[in-house]
């Protein structure tokens, strides 16, 4: 379906599917308003402290990024009124050709381009627009862009994108928009997109701010050009991204691991991308969590076929922006997480092993009852006497059994008797703990009990109880169920204890 010329793609507003209904629409607005209020409220504080405005912007970027990442609210930025619309107008004589060659990197010095993938543009209609908030995009001629489906399109003419609105601030919003392009990139994408920060610097943004932005898009660059830009960049994240990129090309060149397309929500889609809407929708719905994308290798595989068919059969003429920023963020996380899991598992295993060893020792000690052949120390014999003296019977303890048996069999040693007094106190303590250890039934339950993913933070108007029937009258609450947030003004509940 060809894109009509001059078609403007609004930043995701019309395309994003709200999975939440009314509530979902309001919640992002609420969060955004809170963020705005806080930032504005502390602006003076920052000024008084002599801290640069950039730091405040960084804080806002970081905050928004984290919120979006955690909740994956695809409509979060949709309600943002601050994301600028950005129109990319391609020349009319733009021709796209499918090329299977590796991506060529063309990046003008000092200008970096946000990552994006271009959808196939119809030959009949060579102009297409896409909005890309906060970015100035300059795609010089000769750049090969890679579509989500893996097709490469070589841009034969320069593409100039001008920023239509002044506010380049909220870069994450489009980035955060969940959009997973399915399909396997057959070729490494141009590295153009990646270095957003640089471009931002060129325009209005500063490098620090870009850091946060950078974290999200991870474009699959081909090595050298990226590194050059990385060098230009000042943020550390760029370096990390660079490392990421080292891995990327290999993956990409290997064709296809779409699993690396963990995408962050892409920026823009043409409303007319009806053909791809189904994919987008499915992607959006499927990528509710970022991790899904990472593990969505198979998903991508399946979609690739559909999308590919799309591209080849219907030839949608759309530009798709795609941020692969998550890769850089997620991969380290994923790498870290397993290690954490491994560590924890190791710990648990070690603990288990130790416990097993202990019991083994006890069992061995029980078996070795023979007074002459026993390996127990004299100290234990002394303990046996303490047992007798204190008459701490009833404790079914392996240690005590052994002690009793030894006491019955062995002949007392004067040495042990001398030591018994010293051991007595410690032995009493040791013996008394097992005595009381069984009194608390739910000792271990409490810490685990209160550790849950689902939590509600609120205020109570009234808590009522009648026998074991409880009534809760709550207000002004924020609920978090498995990462998803809800809010309420009032909540009324019943429970039975």
């Amino acid at each position, binding site marked *: 379906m060809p894109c009509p010329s001059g078609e403007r793609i609004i930043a995701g507003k019309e395309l994003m599917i709200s999975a939440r209904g009314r509530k979902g629409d309001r919640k992002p607005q609420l969060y955004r308003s809170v963020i705005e209020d806080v930032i504005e409220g502390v602006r003076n504080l920052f000024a008084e402290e002599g801290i640069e405005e950039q730091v405040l912007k960084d804080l806002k970027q970081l905050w928004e990024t984290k919120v979006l990442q955690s909740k994956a609210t695809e409509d979060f930025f949709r309600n943002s009124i601050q994301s600028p619309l950005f129109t990319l107008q391609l020349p009319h004589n733009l021709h796209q050709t499918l090329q299977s060659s590796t991506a060529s990197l063309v990046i003008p010095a000092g200008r970096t381009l946000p990552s994006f993938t271009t959808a196939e543009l119809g030959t009949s209609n060579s102009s297409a627009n896409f909005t890309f908030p906060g970015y100035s995009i300059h795609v010089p001629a000769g750049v090969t862009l890679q579509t989500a489906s893996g097709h490469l399109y070589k841009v034969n003419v320069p593409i100039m994108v001008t920023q239509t609105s002044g506010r380049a601030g909220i870069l994450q919003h489009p980035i955060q928009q969940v959009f997973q392009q399915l399909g396997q990139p057959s070729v490494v994408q141009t590295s153009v997109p990646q270095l957003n920060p640089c471009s931002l610097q060129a325009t209005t943004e500063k490098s620090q701010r870009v850091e946060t932005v950078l974290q999200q898009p991870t474009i699959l660059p081909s090595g050298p050009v990226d590194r050059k830009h990385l060098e230009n960049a000042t943020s550390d994240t760029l370096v990390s991204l660079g490392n990421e990129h080292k891995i990327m090309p290999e993956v990409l060149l290997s064709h296809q691991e779409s699993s690396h397309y963990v995408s962050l929500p892409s920026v823009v889609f043409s409303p007319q991308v009806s053909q791809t809407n189904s994919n987008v929708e499915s992607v959006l719905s499927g990528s509710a969590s970022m991790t899904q994308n990472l593990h969505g290798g198979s998903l991508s595989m399946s979609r690739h076929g559909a999308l590919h068919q799309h591209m080849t059969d219907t030839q949608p003429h759309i530009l798709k922006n795609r941020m692969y920023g998550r890769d850089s963020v997620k991969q380290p996380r994923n790498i870290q997480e397993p290690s954490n899991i491994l560590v924890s598992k190791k710990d648990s295993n070690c603990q288990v092993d130790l416990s097993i060893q202990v019991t083994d020792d006890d069992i061995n000690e029980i078996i070795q009852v023979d007074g002459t052949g026993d390996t127990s120390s004299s100290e234990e014999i002394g303990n046996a006497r303490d047992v007798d003296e204190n008459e701490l019977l009833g404790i079914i303890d392996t240690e005590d059994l052994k002690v009793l048996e030894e006491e019955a069999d062995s002949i007392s040693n004067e040495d042990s008797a001398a030591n018994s007094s010293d051991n007595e106190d410690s032995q009493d303590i040791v013996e008394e703990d097992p005595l009381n250890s069984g009194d608390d039934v739910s000792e271990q339950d409490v810490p685990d009990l209160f550790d849950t993913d689902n939590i509600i933070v609120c205020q*109570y108007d009234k*808590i009522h109880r009648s026998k074991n029937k409880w009534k809760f009258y709550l207000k*002004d609450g924020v609920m978090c169920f498995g990462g998803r947030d809800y809010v309420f*003004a009032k909540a009324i509940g019943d429970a039975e204890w």
Partner: protein
Amino acid sequence: MAYQLYRNTTLGNSLQESLDELIQSQQITPQLALQVLLQFDKAINAALAQRVRNRVNFRGALNTYRFCDNVWTFVLNDVEFREVTELIKVEKVKIVACDGKNTGSNTTE
């Protein structure tokens, strides 16, 4: 002073993490971060009081209850939350509730 209760939410935690990052990079002082959090407390309290208007009903089984320092902490099991638009079921949920009658005096977390 508003409740610091809401710092343990997605919004609050993400703000704290962001502030921690800035502190780590020494772009802000911890004192300033604290001021930001206080501002957040005010903003979130005000936002919840004024901008949110929906109601939720829920029903479940009460596992534990605790009332200490005027803060109720409940753990409920097998709870259903009903809103006009949707129904949410969770196996376990913890509710932390501060006194709603007098929101100006407590600063519990």
